[in-house]
C-alpha cells in the first residue's frame, strides 16, 4: 500500500546525547536505583507507604496499570496501519512503537520492584504453579509475551542501523504474524487489567466496579494510545524543531473521536444500567474524582468533535493531554481512590489510609526518566523518526 503513500524513510535525528533533559533524567535514574537498593535490602515497608489496608500503591496503579496504557500507542497505530490498512499513518508507527516498547519493558521491570517475593516469579511460567483462573496470571503472561513480540517488531530499526540486511529481509517475511500477535496480545491484557478489579468485589466503589471493566479498559487504552501518539508527535516536533505532522494528526483525531464516543456510550450506559450513577452525586472524594475523570473524557470529546479544532495543533495537543489524564484517572480511581479496605469502623480496628511516600514517587519518576532518556538516545542514534529535509539543531 505504501506505494500510494510515499513517505520519507526513517533516519537517526543525530546530535549530542548530553543536554539538560538527559542530565536531569540521569540524576533521577540514579536516585531511583538508590531507593530500590534500600527496598531490596530492607523490604517494601522501608521505602513505601503500603500497609495492611492498601496492599497496592502507585508502583502498581501508576507504573504498571497506567504506564502500560500510555504504552498503547504502538499497538493502536499498528492496528490502524496494518489491520485497517490505513497506510498513510505509516510514519507514526516506528516512533509510537518505540515509546510502547520502552513503556512496556519498564512496566514489566517495575512489577519486580513491587513483588514481595520476587525470587519466586518463575512460578508464573511454571505449569505446576500457573493458575489460569487468576486474572493476574493472564495479564502477566500476556504482557511478557507482548514485550518479546514488540522487540521483534522493532528489530528492523536496529538491523537497518547495523546494516544487517539479510536478517531484516528474513524477518520481514514473518512480520505479518508478529504484527497480528502484537495486536492480539495488548487487546487481551489491556482488557484484563480492568478485570483485575472484578475479584475485589465490594472493596471497589460501584462507580468503578462493573463486569464491563474489560471493555472499558480496552476502549480507553486504545483512545489513550492515539492520544499519546498525538502528544509525542507534537512534543518531538517541538523538541527536535521539526514540522508538525498535521496531515496525519487531523485524521487520527477523528479515529480517536470514534473510539472515545464508543467508550463514553459504554461508560455512561453501564453506570445507568447498574444504577450506580446516583453515587456520583454527593460530597465524597470518590464523587469528586469521578467528575474529574468524566471531564477529562467529555471536554476532549467536544474539542475534537469540531472539524476546525482537529486542524488546530494546540487544541489537539490539549485534547490529547486531557484524554491521557482521563484514562489515567479511570485507572487511578479504580485501583486507589475507589478502593476501600475492609474495616470494622465501629470495632476497635485500624483505619487505613494511603498516600505515596517520597521514595515511591521518586521511583515512579525514575522509571519515567529512563523512558525519556532511552527515547532520546534511540531516536538520535537509530532510524525511528521520518527523515527531515531541514536538519535538526
Amino acid at each position, binding site marked *: *500500500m505504501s506505494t*500510494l503513500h510515499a513517505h520519507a*524513510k526513517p533516519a537517526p535525528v543525530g546530535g549530542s546525547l548530553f543536554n539538560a533533559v538527559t542530565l536531569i533524567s540521569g540524576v533521577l535514574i540514579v536516585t531511583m536505583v538508590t531507593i530500590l537498593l534500600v527496598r*531490596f*535490602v*530492607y*523490604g*517494601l*515497608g522501608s521505602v513505601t507507604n503500603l500497609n*495492611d*489496608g492498601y496492599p*497496592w500503591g502507585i508502583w502498581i496503579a501508576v507504573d504498571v496499570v497506567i504506564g502500560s496504557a500510555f504504552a498503547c500507542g504502538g499497538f493502536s497505530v499498528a492496528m490502524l496501519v*496494518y*489491520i*485497517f*490498512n490505513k497506510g498513510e499513518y505509516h510514519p507514526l*508507527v*516506528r516512533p509510537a512503537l518505540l515509546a510502547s516498547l520502552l513503556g512496556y519493558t519498564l512496566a514489566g521491570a517495575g512489577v519486580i520492584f*513491587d*513483588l*514481595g*517475593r520476587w525470587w519466586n516469579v518463575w512460578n*508464573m511460567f*511454571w505449569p*505446576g*504453579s*500457573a*493458575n*489460569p*483462573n*487468576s486474572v493476574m*496470571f493472564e495479564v*502477566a503472561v500476556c504482557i511478557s509475551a507482548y514485550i518479546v513480540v514488540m522487540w521483534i517488531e522493532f528489530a*528492523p530499526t536496529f538491523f*537497518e542501523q547495523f546494516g544487517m540486511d539479510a536478517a531484516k*529481509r528474513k*524477518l*520481514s*517475511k514473518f512480520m*505479518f504474524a508478529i*504484527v*497480528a*500477535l502484537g495486536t*492480539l496480545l495488548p*487487546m*487481551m491484557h489491556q482488557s484484563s487489567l480492568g*478485570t*483485575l478489579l*472484578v*475479584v*475485589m*468485589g*465490594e*472493596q471497589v466503589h460501584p462507580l468503578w466496579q462493573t463486569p464491563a471493566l474489560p471493555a472499558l479498559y480496552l476502549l480507553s487504552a486504545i483512545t489513550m494510545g492515539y492520544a499519546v501518539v498525538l502528544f509525542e508527535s507534537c512534543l518531538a516536533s517541538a523538541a527536535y524543531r521539526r514540522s508538525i505532522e498535521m496531515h496525519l494528526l487531523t485524521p487520527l483525531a477523528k479515529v480517536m473521536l470514534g473510539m472515545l464516543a464508543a467508550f463514553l456510550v459504554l461508560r455512561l450506559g453501564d453506570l445507568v444500567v447498574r444504577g450506580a450513577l446516583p453515587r456520583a452525586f454527593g460530597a465524597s472524594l470518590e464523587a469528586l474524582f469521578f467528575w474529574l475523570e468524566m471531564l477529562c473524557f467529555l471536554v476532549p470529546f467536544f474539542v475534537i468533535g469540531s472539524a476546525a479544532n482537529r486542524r488546530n495543533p494546540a487544541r489537539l495537543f490539549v485534547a490529547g493531554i486531557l484524554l491521557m489524564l482521563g484514562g489515567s484517572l479511570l485507572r487511578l480511581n479504580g485501583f486507589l481512590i475507589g478502593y476501600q*479496605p475492609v474495616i*470494622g469502623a*465501629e*470495632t*476497635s*480496628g485500624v483505619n487505613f489510609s494511603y498516600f505515596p511516600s517520597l521514595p515511591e514517587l521518586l521511583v515512579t519518576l525514575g522509571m519515567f526518566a529512563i523512558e525519556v532518556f532511552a527515547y532520546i538516545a534511540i531516536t538520535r542514534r537509530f532510524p525511528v523518526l521520518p527523515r527531515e529535509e531541514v536538519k535538526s539543531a
Partner: protein
Amino acid sequence: MTTRRNFLRGALAATGAIVGAGSTASVQARETHKVPEEALGLLYDATLCIGCKACVAACKAANNNPPEFSTVDKLWDTPLDTSGTTFNVIKMYRSGTMETKDAETNGYAFMKTSCMHCADPSCVSACPVSAMTKNPENGIVEYNPDKCIGCRYCVAACPFGIPKYQYDDPTGRIGKCELCRHRHKDGHYSACAEVCPTGATLFGRTEDLLAEAKRRLALKPGSVTTYPRGHLRHGQLKALHGEQEGKGRMERKGWKDEPNQNYEGEVGNYQQHVYGEKEYGGTQVLKLSGVPFEKVGMPKLPPYSSAATSETIQHSLYGGLLMPIAVLGALTWVAKRNVKPEEGDEQ
C-alpha cells in the same frame, strides 16, 4: 478507493471473527463453589466470648508469630488488627455507657477476626501461582510461601481483609489463619478453639457447626442450655439435639481424645442470622452475635463470590483459548494481506 475497500474488508473480517468466536465459545456463568462435604471450620459465638484473648495468645504461639505492640510500654502483645504476623484478634464493639454485654445501644460486644475459609475464596482465584489453594477435602485455604511471589493480589481481593503481607521483612510472607493445619497430624485442632475457656470458639465440621448454630438460634433467650467446648464432634452434636449419642462417633479418627467438657449456660439474645451460612456463597467459619453483624465489623456481602464473577468473565473470553485463537487467525489473515514483505523493510 482500494484503500477504503480494503479497510472495510479488514474491519468486517475482524469484527466478524470476534462476534463469531464470542457466540460459539461456551459463555457459561460459573456458579459459586460450595463448601466441601468434610469441610472443617470454627463456630464463634460472640454471646459466649468473654474477651480474654486467650485465643489470640494461643494463635501467636501455635504459629510462631512475634508479639506486636500498640501501647507505649510495649509490655505485651497488643495487636489492633490482624497483620502479616497476627492471624487472629478479638475486636471490641462499644456503645454509649457500655452497660450491657451484647446490647447494640449502651452495650459492648466482642468479635473474632480471622480467616473465614470461604467456600469460593477470592484469594485462591486471584493468586497467579497457586500459592493460595483450597484443600479439596477439608476446604482449608492453605498458603505456600515457596510458590508465593508476594504480589499481594490476595490481600486486595479478600472481602474480609484477611491475608496480609509482612512489609518490614525483605523476604516477607503472606500471613493468615490456616486452621492450624500444621498441628492436625498430631491430633491437635485450631489452637484458638483448643484454649477458648467458654467454647465461644468451637472447632469442628462446618456442617455440624451450622447445625449447632441453628440449634442455639431456635432456643428461647434467657433459657438454659448445654454448650460444648473445644472440638465439636458429630456424636456430641446429636446428643445436644436430644438424640442417642451413637457410640464410636464421639471420637473422630486422628483427633486427640478429650473428656466431655460440656457445661450449662444461659442462652443469649441472638441476631437470627448465622453469619457465613450464605455470605459470599458460604464460609467454613460461622458466627453468631447479639449485635448486628455490620456493627461488629462483619461486612454485608452478597450470597455469591466475586471469584465466580471474575472467572466467568475470564473464561468466557479465554476459555480453551478459543476466542484468542479465532481473533489471532483473523488478524493474521488481514495482516498477511496488508504487510508486504518487500516493504516490510520499511518495518
